[in-house]
């Protein structure tokens, strides 16, 4: 298969931009991310990851692919399976037909992942582009080079139970539209994203969610060790493979820049710059947290909370800017 592997910052937006580009609809990763209105923030204490609350910086898994395809009018087929045998057969069929196939997998069971990155996370996306000598050829968007994986390992990774269980999820693109009305879609996507970030009815989502997390940090109780674990967890959710909080802000800023050029709109270029500053604030926050965790002094909770509030205010500022643009 004549397939062009592209490394990307995030697995889901990377997989879908590769899939669409392969079908002749060339789209960059930031554009895919932005048009799926994927930027978000959520602090969800009832979903525990290793005993700590889930902190998400983008929409939940599958939402990017579904949202983008719906917005663009792309025909995409999702398949889940009950039996691993059926799933493996269906995958082999598609590969034999020369189709590019997207899969949802668990990171822990992918042998090519670095040992220290293999945590239990069930919603990692990758592409299968062929099979040679009984081994699947993989394009994993977060790696710079192509990978190979034995059928046994891949089947295992596709059929993990637990939170966000992939159930063998496999997806292929049926059809792509010949023309896309970018000005209209960009406006729609930004408007929708604005609602997620500033208009959610729950206090744990969007800009309010960031302030909520600041409050949680301020009132953190327990031993110093517990506090360290909690704060370290926030940084991991923010920066490690698959999540990347500051990273997502930069991806979105890149989308705004691309949109500004496409529509020749200066207001979007300004918003892109402001979003870049937000990303930088998040990175500074991560630096500050790790510094606090490493020092022997008691953790300066108020200081960290204050930093987060600054991020929240900056992010609210960007959305205000975009709100004015959207209205005008």
């Amino acid at each position: 298969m004549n397939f062009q592997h592209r490394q990307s910052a995030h697995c889901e937006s990377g997989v879908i931009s590769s899939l669409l580009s392969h079908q002749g609809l060339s789209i960059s990763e930031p554009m895919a991310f932005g048009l799926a209105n994927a930027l978000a923030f959520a602090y969800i204490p009832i979903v525990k990851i290793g005993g700590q609350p889930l902190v998400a910086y983008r929409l939940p898994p599958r939402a990017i692919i579904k949202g983008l395809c719906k917005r663009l009018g792309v025909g995409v087929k999702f398949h889940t399976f009950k039996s691993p045998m059926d799933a493996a057969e269906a995958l082999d069929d598609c590969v034999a037909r020369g189709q590019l196939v997207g899969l949802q997998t668990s990171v822990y069971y992918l042998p090519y992942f670095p040992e220290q990155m293999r945590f239990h996370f069930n919603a990692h996306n990758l592409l299968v582009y062929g099979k040679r000598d009984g081994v699947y050829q993989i394009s994993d968007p977060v790696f710079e080079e192509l990978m190979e994986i034995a059928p046994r390992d891949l089947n295992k990774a596709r059929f993990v139970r637990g939170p966000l269980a992939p159930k063998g999820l496999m997806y292929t693109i049926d059809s792509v539209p010949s023309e896309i009305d970018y000005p209209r879609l960009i406006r729609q996507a930004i408007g929708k994203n604005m609602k997620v970030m500033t208009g959610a009815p729950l206090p744990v989502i969007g800009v309010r969610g960031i302030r909520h997390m600041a409050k949680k940090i301020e009132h953190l109780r327990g031993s110093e060790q517990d506090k360290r674990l909690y704060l370290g967890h926030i940084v991991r959710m923010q920066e490690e493979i698959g999540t990347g909080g500051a990273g997502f802000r930069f991806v979105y800023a890149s989308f705004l820049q691309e949109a500004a050029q496409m529509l020749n709109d200066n207001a979007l270029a300004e918003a892109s710059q402001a979003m870049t500053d937000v990303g930088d604030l998040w990175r500074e926050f991560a630096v500050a947290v790790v510094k606090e965790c490493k020092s022997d002094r008691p953790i300066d909770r108020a200081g960290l909370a204050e930093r987060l509030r600054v991020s929240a205010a900056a992010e609210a500022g960007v959305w205000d800017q975009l709100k004015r643009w959207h209205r005008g």
Partner: protein
Amino acid sequence: MRTDQVPQDKSTTYAGHKKLLYAQDESGRYCGVQSSGWAVEAAATLDAVALYRERARQAWQEVHAGRKSPLYFHMHHCRMDLVLLSQLTGLWRWRVKRHFAPRVFARLSPAILARYAQAMDVSPAQLTQLPEQRP
């Protein structure tokens, strides 16, 4: 973030791989830049890895002393906890907890053992044994 600010800390956690980040070049244009790691991120990752290792060590001791079944060690060794293991196997939490008792574990049916073995990606025989070396 500017392209020259993209961290290149060669983190061991990346195992020689590189991650893509988006950053602005001198003219302010966004482009993808590979990063070989960031010390800040690596510190958080290594903390988590160390925590899992410490739990596995403690579990090994418990099992070695005969207070817990080997299942308890393998669970921690695979970076899992009770909640996750129960979700991965589809067994109720209280049942999993019960299987931490050496006497109950010794009488487990091959079917249940196979379920644990599958979740942890080891053979059932391996599951009933404790490695000789403390990890």
